[in-house]
């Protein structure tokens, strides 16, 4: 999936503007569903075989060749649809104390790039996400991450999220918890 040496035009080959526009709208809408805590609708944007992954990040020396983005290592999320559903189920409980009063979520998505893949109905989509959480009186937490998604058009013609790799920028999460999806 290296795009070194390719021009923007070459990368966009096989990806027309309408498709890019449609995928952008898909991601913006997803962000709003999360901001509005419409979690069931959010889950409905997932492919049944979705892999939603946010590995833990470590600061290591450049000379260190250990594979740090690896599914043998600890992660914040390494989820299938079943796990995501369990998380949503908890958030919906009236006893989810950390959500009441609600966390005021803010998801800003940007730098969207769409790349064709070998499979006609699947695209690799790069984006940046800025997430702000405000809680209670003055609590404010900022998360930024780079995302690499695989977006698929299913048999009904709808776009679905099939893979998401979220690379956080923080090695030490500057927050008491991660009660947000990015």
């Amino acid at each position, binding site marked *: 999936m290296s795009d070194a040496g390719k021009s923007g035009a070459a990368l966009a080959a096989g990806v027309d503007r309408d498709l890019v526009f449609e995928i952008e709208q898909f991601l913006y809408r997803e962000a709003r569903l999360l901001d509005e805590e419409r979690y069931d609708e959010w889950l409905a944007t997932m492919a049944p075989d979705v892999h939603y992954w946010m590995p833990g990040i470590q600061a290591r020396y450049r000379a260190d060749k250990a594979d740090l983005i690896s599914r043998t*290592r*600890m992660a*914040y*999320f390494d*989820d299938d649809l079943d796990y995501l559903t369990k998380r949503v189920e908890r958030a919906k*409980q009236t006893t989810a*104390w950390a959500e009441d009063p609600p966390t005021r979520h803010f998801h800003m998505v940007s730098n969207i790039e769409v790349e064709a893949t070998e499979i006609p109905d699947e695209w690799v989509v790069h984006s940046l996400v800025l997430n702000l959480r405000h809680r209670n009186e003055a609590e404010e937490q900022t998360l930024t991450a780079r995302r690499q998604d695989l977006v698929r058009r299913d048999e009904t013609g709808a776009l679905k999220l099939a893979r998401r790799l979220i690379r956080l920028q923080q090695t030490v999460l500057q*927050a*008491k*918890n991660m009660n947000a999806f990015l």
Partner: protein
Amino acid sequence: MSAPFAKGPAAPADLPRDEAPAPAPGPGPLDEAAVRAMVDSEQGWIDRRIFWDPQVYALEMERTFARCWIFVAHDSQIPEVGDFLTTYVGEDAVIVARARDRQVHAFINSCSHRGNRVCFAEAGSARRFTCNFHGWSYALDGSLSGVTAEELYKDNPTFDRSKLGLHKARVESHGGMHFACFDPEAPSLADYLGEFRWYLDVLLDNDEGGIEFVDGNIKSRLKCNWKFPAEDFVGDAYHATWTHSSALQALFGNIPTMKADRSFQVNANGHGWDFGLDFISNAATLCEPEIVEYLRENEVRFAERLGKMRSRMVGSLSSATVFPNLSFLAGHNTFRTWNPKGPAETELHTWVFLNRNAPDSLKEKYRRGVMLTFSPAGIFEMDDGENFEHCTASNAGVVTRRRKLHTGLGLGSEVEHPELKGNVHRNQVNEANHRAFYQRWTDLMTAPNWADVPVR
């Protein structure tokens, strides 16, 4: 942060509710008597200033973290010569490395020359640690091994290589868990853990190969005093069904009950574990049937190694803290440390551990299951941080700080038990372990020397 002590007169006795002892005194020097008055571990009253006051915090860095055995690494994290990781003992940054003698060494991560940080990576493998400032380098055991243009120091009367190594800690281990201690007067790790070693073996030695840690280490910052999470794990079974109601409902559709007559709190030297004899309840919340099957299949083998009683603790509803800041959950298989970053900030480091000889497919279930439940994004842990932060922040109020906190649940629940070691209390829903934790804290805070610290 506002001034540590309340100014002006002591709080008026304006409200009832006062079987509580006298309000906290006004400003004054923080002598041993003042610290002793902050904790009543007999009746269970805790002065809120121990979670807020910068003077108390400074003293506890000196008298607890700089004197106690602090967990720094598991053997499996640094298996080969040259493997290292960086962590903290209190607010002291340390490097933990396996040197050519194959032993684990721990030393301060600060150059003997101008004090620069020597190692910036969280983990890795190295031949030596070289300082970025002037290039002094240190061997894997912390000794000074190279000095840039060393001829400059020729005939220098104060330059002695052998005295300029990085400040080394004592390192001792139990069951592959390495602890560091910067106090030469401290007792051995074995004596420090005391009878709690017998309990630690429930996790560290229920299987022939012992345990290993999953690679990686999830870290997060909570705006709380480090003692709130440490005391939570030492024995706050009480909060489990309330704080974590949402996760329990989401996973099981109901809230489990804890059995008063089939559960205990035990403690020794301020280390504590609350547990039921239910064998699998913590493990079951990982929602991976294969984990419960593994435990059931091995139940007899666990009992052969540990005896029937301890074998019932392997995956049970439980939580524990090794004083001061190493906590863990049996069944969930997570170790974590609460690293102080000032009176009102704590850095949490979490790991997943597994039986080394368990099948790989099972290890994968644990890795994912712990992440779903007990990590900063975990559906259980998510609700804990909120509590710890607000228990801390409320003490900004000067009037708020005048009232002591009640930690008296389960007074009089101590029992003699034919098998269980240490101080044993019936019913895991109890605050006996909180009281023991704070008794130990007071012992250390008021003792000028280790010789003055009683065995508890």
